[in-house]
C-alpha cells in the first residue's frame, strides 16, 4: 500500500500529510507538473495555497498536469483524499459536489474542532464507527461549504462539525463530503495535523489508517 501526496507550488501541508501517511503505509510526494502517479494506491491532495489560490481557491491547480491524472485515477475508482485546499481543488475539478465560500466571519480561523463521523462506510472512515467524535484542527479563510439544494444526498456527508463547532458557516455543519462512488473525499479540517497525542490529538490518524486498510 502506497500513498501519493501531491505537491503544488504553494502547497504547505504536504510534508505533514506525507508523515501522517507514513505512519500507516509507504508514501511519496507527487510533483504537480508530472503526469505519472508512480503506481500509488491512494492520492492525498494536501492543504496550502496551490498556485497562489489566484482567481479562486483551487481554480488553477485543478488544471495542472498531475491533476488530470488524479481525475482519471478517481474516475477509475482510486481513492483520493482532499484536505482543506485539496478539498477546494477537488470541488473545482468536479470530483466532489459543492464549493467552498469565504468563512461567514470573513476571518481566518485556526482552532481545534470536533467532527462527528456520519458515514463510516467510506474507504476514509472504515476505521471509525458512526457517531465517533474526532478532534482535529481547522485553519482556513475559505471553508464555508455550500452545495446547491438537492445535490448532496445525506450518505455523501462523511463528517459533520459537532454542535457548536462549525467554524465557518458551512451549510448543515458539513465538514467533509464524498462523491457518489465514495472513493473521493474532501474535508476542511486537517487530519494530518492530528496524528500524534503530543500535539493534542491523534484522531486524524484514523482517516489515514482507514485508507491504509484498502487492499493494495
Amino acid at each position, binding site marked *: 500500500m502506497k500513498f501519493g501526496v501531491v505537491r503544488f507550488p504553494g502547497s504547505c501541508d504536504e510534508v505533514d500529510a506525507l508523515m501522517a501517511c507514513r505512519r500507516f503505509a509507504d508514501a511519496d510526494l507527487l510533483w504537480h507538473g508530472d503526469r505519472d502517479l508512480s503506481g500509488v494506491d491512494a492520492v492525498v491532495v494536501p492543504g496550502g495555497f496551490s498556485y497562489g489560490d489566484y*482567481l*479562486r481557491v483551487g*481554480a*488553477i491547480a485543478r*488544471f495542472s498536469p498531475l491533476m488530470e491524472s488524479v481525475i482519471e485515477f478517481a474516475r477509475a475508482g482510486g481513492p483520493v483524499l482532499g484536505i482543506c485546499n485539496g478539498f477546494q481543488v477537488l470541488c*473545482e475539478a468536479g470530483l466532489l459536489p*459543492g*464549493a467552498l*465560500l*469565504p*468563512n*461567514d*466571519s*470573513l476571518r481566518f480561523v485556526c482552532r481545534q474542532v470536533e467532527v462527528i463521523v456520519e458515514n463510516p462506510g467510506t474507504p476514509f472512515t472504515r476505521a471509525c464507527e458512526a457517531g465517533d467524535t474526532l478532534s482535529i484542527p481547522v485553519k482556513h479563510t475559505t471553508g*464555508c461549504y*455550500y452545495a*446547491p439544494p438537492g445535490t448532496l444526498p445525506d450518505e455523501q456527508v462523511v463528517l459533520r462539525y459537532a454542535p457548536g463547532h462549525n467554524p465557518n*458557516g458551512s451549510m448543515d455543519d458539513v465538514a467533509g463530503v464524498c462523491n457518489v462512488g465514495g472513493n473521493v473525499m474532501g474535508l476542511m479540517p486537517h487530519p494530518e495535523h492530528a496524528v500524534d497525542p503530543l500535539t493534542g490529538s491523534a484522531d486524524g490518524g484514523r482517516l489515514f489508517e482507514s485508507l491504509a486498510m484498502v487492499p493494495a
Partner: protein
Amino acid sequence: MLIRPKAGILDPQGQAVERALPALGFEGVANVHVGRLIELDVEDASQVPQMCERLLANPLIEEYEVVELEDAA
C-alpha cells in the same frame, strides 16, 4: 467580465460593506454584493462565455456578465 455571487449565495463581503456604509452616514443602502472584474483583450469574443464557464467563474456559486468594450486600452 463582471463576476458576482449568485442570488441566494452567502456573501459575507457584501454584508460587511452593507453594514459599513450606514456607519459612515450613507443611508438607504441595500442588496450590496461584492464580486470581481476581469479585463482582457481577445481576438474572438465568442470564446469568452466558455472561458467564464470553465475557469473565470464557478457557475455553481457565481454568475457572470460579459461587457464588450469597443476601444480596448
